[in-house]
């Protein structure tokens, strides 16, 4: 339980700093510190048991489907890392309290810091590798925030993004690696995985898993060639650099290598990948560090170098090397965190981190100088400090390792690395603190307040103590930790300052001497270094990312440039292609259905249709003509429907077509009347080819279906129409009864269309369009009479007759072709006729129906008819009907379906009229005037008027 709590505490506490900042900066820091301290204490409570070899576990079931569980375990390795994370974390919190300026949002900083801390603790205490992945990614995210904390600095932004990109890449690789590992081991639990060394190393998937996991580790731990992100992350505030980039996050990779050491290490692949990478990183990092003038950059690359060292040790695969690795991890954490803090102090006091502008600070800030010197000497590996011991042991291991059969390569290169390390460490001391006292500092630097140097001082003390008495101060922890790393087969060893006269001693002496020499000739070497061509990692990375972004942008823009016509062409080709593939992919036998005979008139109709289709394609640029042709096609299709026994379809088709044409004409009035000739010939040919392919495909499909027999469910509808649905027009009974639900949806579509049109017109009329419309002038010659007398008179007679026809079609629909929908259209067309004759305004002023309400009522009628069935305990839309006889009249039928159909009727009328009304508003905004009279000239009215007026 407490293991889980140690992980959870930083997360739970993460909100507190944000809240406490109102109580002041001290309270904020204290709260953060208290949370961390609490976790640290919990850890210490468990420490004795762990040191004695116990493993503490805690498990919460989370996601069995995946094998992802909240399981934690605490062993020596976990203890060391968790202790480091929390312990150094405490010091960083203290340090940051004084480091951050008043302008920096401190609450946010501590929140991020706690999040990061929790994620780190999570990594080192996870027993489930998927859970570990989660924490792993969380460290990337929280470090992104921490690095970018000073968001106004471009370096901070770039550094944060680079760190995120690189560690993100590694994290993703690791996901794959971990999943493979889990696959091999049959579990995602580390405690289980660590038992399966043989199975894992024998698996063919071992190498991919290893590569992927190492990619994650190397990126996180800034191993060559992924070392470049680390220095740029140094744009972060110094506490962040000290914490993330020396003590914790960069060690996550090391931790994982150590964690998986028992099952992954010991193979050739492991050795060559890990040891070589480590060695290379150690030397390259050190070389770069030597020539960095920025204090933090120097320290950053020194960190890279030391991480390489540790990686190399882990790569050796021998238990003793692992022991050394663990020991150096501890030592590095102590001196490097302290060094970062001294660098921060210098920056804070002098306002510069440029070595070239520093020097002689020992006299001005003696305490800082002392701390820096001790820790830097430890970094250089000078006795009697802790760095010396672990470096000696490292050189010893290096001396005993052979690379590709060559026994001295590793030793030599490692010594060279150590030599460089000595050089930059001495440089840090000599060029910053020693030398003549300078007077060109903007203000006199002096030692900071106690709170700021307390933390590094404590670490410096540790550096000395471990150096002097490693057996007492470090050995138990190293034993416990290394025991965990090596999986129990720990060699006999003893940590001490003096190892005797070993090859390592001579290597060490060579390193110190060579390092001194290098520093002495530093100026000359620097000239050489600067003159030498070397890849600037940041520039490469930036170029890579921006090239990727640019390429992505180009691909994206090229594909998604808004050319709908191309999108549609692709859609058509895709549909044709997949249809063809489907056809070719299955058995096909030609149909056996006898075909209907062909007589002359249908052939003529067919000819008409074909010619009209061709004409539409050819003449479509004359838009009015295209609409006339649409009219022709609609007419022929309607006749076709009648001929082929579908009278309802014919009625619907023809009336829908006329309303469509009217709508299109209304819209066309404000659109260009001609389509310009702008397609190139190849394009036309391409489109024609697609069109022909589509036409052929659809035609062939239709033919294939028409010529084969089939069994259909509609026999039921034919049988049940009269007895069950109470109507002889099966199509209508299907519409209002069997599949009334479809019709319900359909009228809603219509209603929505009208509402959407209305909303659209409303919106555009309230926008800039309104102004443009006011300035609109007709683009074609206009006749002078708006409402010719003859049409007005004719419609006066036509309207009542048409309404009669509408009622008739409505009433007979259940038994004969017709129904609510067609009736609605007939009535709408009759009204439209009236509107065309006498103008919208006049006609509208005669009937004050609210079309919105008509639509709503229609849908409600239909819907409530459906709901009504609930009260009879029946499902939605269950119909009922009965026959009524009132003498002396004939028997007639009453059906609930009629009410439903009435809803359909109302919706249709309302929708059509609302759409037309909306369009006429555009015209009105375009300057059209209202007509108070139904016709332009009424000769009889003139006679009457002269009397009245």
């Amino acid at each position, binding site marked *: 339980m407490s293991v889980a709590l140690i992980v959870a505490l930083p997360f739970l506490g993460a909100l507190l700093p944000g809240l406490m900042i109102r109580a002041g900066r001290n309270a904020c820091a204290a709260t953060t510190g208290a949370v961390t301290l609490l976790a640290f204490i919990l850890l210490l409570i468990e420490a004795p048991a762990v040191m004695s070899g116990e493993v503490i576990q805690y498990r919460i079931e989370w996601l069995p489907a995946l094998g992802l569980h909240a399981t934690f375990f605490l062993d020596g390795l976990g203890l060391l890392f968790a202790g480091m994370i929390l312990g150094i974390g405490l010091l960083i919190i203290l340090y940051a309290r004084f480091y951050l300026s008043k302008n920096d949002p401190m609450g946010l900083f501590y929140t991020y810091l706690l999040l990061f801390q929790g994620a780190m603790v999570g990594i080192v205490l996870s027993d489930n590798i998927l859970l570990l992945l989660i924490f792993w990614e969380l460290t990337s995210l929280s470090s992104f925030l921490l690095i970018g904390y000073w968001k106004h600095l471009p370096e901070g932004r770039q550094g944060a993004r680079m760190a995120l990109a690189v560690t993100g890449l590694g994290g993703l690789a690791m996901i794959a690696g971990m999943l493979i590992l889990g696959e091999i081991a049959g579990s995602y639990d580390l405690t289980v995985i660590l038992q399966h060394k043989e199975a894992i190393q024998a698996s063919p998937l071992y190498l991919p898993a290893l590569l992927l996991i190492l990619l994650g580790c190397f990126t996180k731990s800034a191993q060559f060639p992924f070392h470049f992100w680390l220095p740029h992350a140094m744009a972060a505030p110094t506490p962040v650099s000290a914490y993330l980039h020396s003590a914790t996050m960069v060690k996550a990779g090391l931790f994982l290598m150590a964690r998986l050491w028992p099952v992954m290490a010991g193979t050739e692949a492991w050795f060559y990948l890990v040891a070589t990478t480590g060695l290379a990183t150690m030397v390259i990092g050190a070389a770069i560090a030597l020539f960095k003038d920025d204090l933090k950059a120097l320290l950053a690359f020194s960190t890279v170098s030391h991480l390489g060292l540790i990686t190399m040790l882990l790569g050796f695969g021998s238990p003793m090397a692992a022991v050394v690795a663990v020991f150096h991890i501890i030592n590095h954490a102590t001196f490097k965190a302290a060094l970062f803090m001294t660098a921060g102090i210098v920056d804070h006091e002098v306002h510069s981190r440029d070595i070239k502008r520093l020097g002689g600070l020992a006299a001005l800030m003696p305490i800082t100088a002392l701390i820096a010197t001790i820790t830097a000497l430890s970094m250089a590996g000078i006795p009697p400090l802790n760095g010396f011991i672990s470096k000696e042991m490292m050189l010893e291991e290096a001396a005993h390792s052979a690379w590709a059969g060559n026994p001295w390569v590793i030793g030599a290169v490692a010594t060279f690395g150590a030599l460089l390390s000595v050089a930059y460490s001495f440089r840090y001391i000599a060029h910053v603190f020693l030398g003549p006292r300078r007077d060109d500092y903007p203000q006199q630097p002096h030692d900071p307040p106690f709170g700021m140097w307390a933390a590094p001082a404590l670490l410096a003390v540790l550096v000395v103590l471990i150096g002097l008495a490693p057996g007492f101060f470090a050995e138990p922890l190293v034993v416990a930790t290394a025991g965990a790393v090596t999986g129990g087969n720990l060699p006999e060893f003893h940590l001490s300052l003096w190892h005797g006269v070993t090859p390592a001693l001579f290597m060490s002496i060579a390193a110190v001497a060579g390092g001194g020499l290098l520093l002495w000739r530093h100026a000359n070497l620097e000239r050489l270094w600067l003159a030498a061509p070397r890849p600037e990692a940041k520039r490469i990375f930036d170029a890579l990312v921006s090239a990727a972004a640019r390429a992505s942008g180009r691909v994206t823009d090229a594909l998604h440039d808004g050319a709908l016509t191309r999108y549609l062409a692709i859609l058509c080709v895709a549909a044709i292609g997949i249809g063809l593939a489907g056809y070719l992919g299955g058995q096909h036998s030609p149909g056996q259905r006898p075909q209907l005979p062909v007589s002359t008139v249908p052939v003529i109709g067919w000819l008409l249709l074909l010619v009209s289709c061709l004409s539409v394609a050819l003449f479509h640029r004359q838009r009015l003509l295209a609409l006339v042709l649409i009219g022709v096609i609609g007419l022929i299709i309607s006749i076709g429907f009648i001929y082929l026994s579908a009278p309802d379809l014919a009625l619907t088709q023809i009336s829908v077509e006329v309303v469509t044409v009217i709508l299109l004409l209304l819209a066309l009035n404000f659109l260009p009347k001609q389509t310009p000739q702008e397609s190139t010939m190849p394009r036309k040919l391409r489109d024609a080819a697609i069109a022909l392919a589509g036409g052929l495909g659809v035609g062939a499909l239709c033919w294939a279906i028409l010529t084969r027999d089939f069994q259909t469910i509609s026999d039921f509808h034919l049988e049940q129409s009269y007895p069950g649905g109470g109507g002889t027009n099966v199509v209508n009974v299907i519409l209002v009864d069997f599949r009334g639900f479809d019709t319900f949806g359909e009228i809603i579509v219509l209603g929505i269309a009208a509402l959407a049109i209305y909303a659209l017109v409303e919106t555009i009329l309230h926008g800039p369009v309104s102004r443009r419309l006011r300035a609109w002038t007709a683009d074609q010659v206009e006749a*002078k009479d708006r409402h010719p007398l*003859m049409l007005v008179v*004719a419609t006066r007679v036509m309207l009542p007759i048409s309404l009669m026809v509408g009622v008739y079609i409505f009433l007979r629909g259940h038994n004969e072709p017709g129904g609510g929908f067609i009736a609605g259209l007939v009535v709408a067309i009759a009204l439209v006729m009236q509107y065309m004759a006498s103008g919208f305004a006049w006609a509208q002023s005669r009937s*004050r129906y*609210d079309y919105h309400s008509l639509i709503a009522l229609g849908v409600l009628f239909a819907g409530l008819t459906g709901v009504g069935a609930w009260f009879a305990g029946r499902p939605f839309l269950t119909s009922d009907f009965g026959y009524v006889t009132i003498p002396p009249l004939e028997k007639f039928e009453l059906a609930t379906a009629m009410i439903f159909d009435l809803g359909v009727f109302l919706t249709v009328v309302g929708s059509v*009229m609302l759409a037309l*009304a909306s369009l006429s*508003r555009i015209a009105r905004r375009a300057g059209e005037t*209202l007509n108070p009279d139904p016709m332009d000239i009424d000769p009889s009215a003139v006679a009457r008027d002269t009397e009245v007026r």
Partner: protein
Amino acid sequence: MILLVEVLISALLVVGGFFALVGSFGLIKLGDPMTRLHAPTKATTLGVGSVLIASMLYFAVIEGAFSFHELLISLFLFLTAPITANFIAKAYLLHRAQPEALPRTERDCGWANFDAPKRDAVLTPPLNEDPAQR
């Protein structure tokens, strides 16, 4: 009697077909849109009219069920055909005819196509309110 009616029906059908054909033939034969307008408006109405009468007779006598639908269709056609012709003529006049070439109205105004209505309607400014909302 039946035979007589059959002959009558057949004759009507033949006449109807013939006139309809002539009407549509005129539509392609005649040379100028205004004259073309004559062909379908007249010939076709008689063509369709004959067919409608034939149909009425047919259903009444041969099928034994009176049918009045045809009357209704005729009513519609007779009501609409002149209006359609009038509109087509106006559309033609607007774009193809010179107003000066037309005979004078012998009134103090021109033809409605080219001259604004004499007793002009009192035009009101555009309303801002939405007619659909009233």
